[in-house]
Structure formats: C-alpha cells, structure tokens
C-alpha cells in the first residue's frame, strides 16, 4: 500500500458538465449508432437538432451506464433496460418521498 495519496479533483456530473456525441461514444465504448438508438428510444435527451451538434447533460452518463449494464447483465433488449432505469428512478423518488413523509409524521426513526 503506497503511503502517499494522489490528490484528484472530482467532477460532479450535473448540468454544468456537457458531452458531445463523440465524447459519450468514447467514454462508453459505444458505436455511434448504438448511442443514437439510446436517444431515439428516449433514454437520454440531448440539446441540439443534428447529432453532430448534440449536447448531453452530465446526468446522461449515469443513465447510459445503468441502462447498458442492465441490458448486458440481465440479457434484455434496450427498450426493457430503459423501462427498468425509469422504474428504478421512480422507485428511488418514491422512497425519498416516503422517508420525508415518515419524518414529517414522526414515524420514520
């Protein structure tokens, strides 16, 4: 185990970070057509009309990672993976809502 830690600054993948189509393809190891399919299926929504001018918000990377993992690991098609991502996000939103309401009702902790 090295004694010295390497200092690195993290980038939060939020609205302040954007990716082009080519950048996302490189980061994900995806073909252009596969990424265009993800856009056409509604998994991620870029700004811009033409693919060469598309700009994806930073959050898109997390959705793409998750959908591609689910597609491969569960051996399902892209549409099924996107549905799973959307349902997982909805479940997380509802879990947070429940935690808030439990706290407000004094029943959560």
């Amino acid at each position, binding site marked *: 185990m090295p004694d010295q830690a390497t200092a690195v600054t993290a980038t939060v993948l939020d609205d302040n970070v954007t990716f082009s189509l080519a950048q996302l393809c490189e980061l994900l190891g995806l073909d252009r057509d596969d990424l265009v399919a993800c856009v056409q299926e509604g998994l991620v929504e870029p700004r811009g009309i033409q693919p060469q001018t598309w700009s994806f918000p930073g959050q898109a990377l*997390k959705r793409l990672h998750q959908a591609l993992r689910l597609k491969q690991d569960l051996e399902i098609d892209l549409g099924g993976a996107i549905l799973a991502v959307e349902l997982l996000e909805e479940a997380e939103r509802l879990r947070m809502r429940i935690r808030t309401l439990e706290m407000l009702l004094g029943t959560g902790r």
Partner: protein
Amino acid sequence: MQYKDYYKVMGLARDASADEIKRAYRKLARKYHPDVSREAQAEERFKELGEAYEVLRDPQKRAAYDRLGSSWQSGQEFTPPPEWHGGGFGFGPDSEGADHRFSDFFETLFGHAFHSGARPSTTMQRGQDQHSRIAITLAEAYSGATRTLHLTTPDWRVGGAGAQRERKLQVRIPAGVVPGQQIRLAGQGSPGVAGGPAGDLYLDVALQPHPLLQVEGRDVYLTLPITPWEAALGGQITVPTLGGQVDVRIPAGSQSGQKLRLKGRGLGSANPGDQYIVLQILTPPATTAAARETYERMARELPFNPRSHMEV
C-alpha cells in the same frame, strides 16, 4: 482456496440443460443485480452468479468443471488435481466477463479473465471503467469534502495472471453535490492495455442520514416544533439550515403541517433547491394545577371545534 459449487450458486441440478441454466441466470440476475436489488449481499451474490454462469454456460468449461466430480462440498478446501493443465480457456478483454474479477478457484481452473494462458493482449485498449458508491454527510454535500479512497485495480503491466495494484486517492468532492448524482474521476479506473488510456472511476453519491434534516432531491425538509402561542401569535424563531442558523418569522395563526419555504437553502451548486420548514405544534403537558387551570380557562374563553368539518 475453497471449492465453489456453481450448480448450488445457481440453484440447479448437475444435469441442468442449457435452457435451464440460462433461465436460472436471468431470474437470479434480476434478483441480485446491484442496480436493482436492495439486499445487503446483492453485489457479492451477483459476482458469484456471474462466475457460475461463465462456467456453466460454456460447454467446454462446464465439462472441465464437471470432471472434478460431484463429491466436493461448497467451501471445502480445494487443490486442483495434479493432471489439471490450467488456463487454456482464455477469454480476452472483449468478452463479457473481462471486467469481472473472478475467484481464485475460477482463475486456478480456467486462467485469469484477461490472460489467455498468461499471454497479454498486444492490442491497444482503453482500461475498464470502475464504479463504486460513496456515502457522505449532508454537511459534506453542502460544503464539499475530501475523502481518501483505497482502490485495488488490475495491473496488466505486471507479469503473471491476476496482478493487482493498490492505490490511495485523495478525492476532493465539490460543494453542492446531490444524492444520486455521479462523480467522475477521469483516468482513475483500470489501466489501459498496450498503451491505451486508463478508464475512469465513477462514484455514486449517497447521503448518510441526518438527525434533523431530510433530503428529497435538491430540497431539504425540517420539522420545526413550535408552541401553541408561537403558532397563534406568530414570532421569530431560530432554525438550523445547511448554511448555518437563520431567523425565520412564523406568521400569526399558523397551524401544524403548514410549510414555510427558505428559497435557495437546499442542495446544489448552480441551481440550489429550497429548505422547507414544516410546523408541528406541540402542547405543554397539563401536569400541574396551574397548567390545568390555564387549559380550562382556554376551553371556556376560546370556543373552538377543530372537527366542525366532520359535522360531529
């Protein structure tokens, strides 16, 4: 090294058909996938499942595994038979299993996931991305934090199968991160192959519970207990926020459950959320004669039916 009963991991009989193996994998993968499952050991179970499936779905690997015999028990101390040739089952970094670290048992029987009989690839490739989670406090999310991470990454540059490198990273997490967001550490994933660039490290941010504040997206909620007279008459009350204490004016005639909004006092850097204060009126107990007399006088002088809408 411990023997792994791949049939047991997948809940299958030793004569299971290829279809049964595939069905069992899909069913268990849905149950234990770390993106889906809330079970504590999900990640570990999913890794075991992936390893078992890697062997049982491949007729050659399955036949070799079956040749070990059925008398072994899961977890039993194992050494491969002397005639076992090892390796020879190489599957390169393009295969699905390439980003998984399999057990010593698997690697002894079938060779390391990356190496094909310990022959490293000569094709330049970007390193694998790595994914992990990081739990930070609400205060750290608001103000930023520095955390030291201990990482173990495969090191293809070192000879021999399964070489690992341990690293320490001091990570500066910027202020304003929101739970569920992803943090990227460029170039901190697995090293590239044959001169290729390193992959990235991604951290999913989770928040540790806070004793007073509950986070929902970018917004923060606080239940604020107040007295009946503060609710009725209004007043100035000091409340905790992420940025420190602030004075809040409670309007006269406030009721339990009423929400007050402190704009921009939630999480997020560019477009911060709000803090909501939810009022909760608490009544003092009538445990003394004086307190009882006060309540009785209120009952006489403040005629009030909170159930009038129920017509009872």
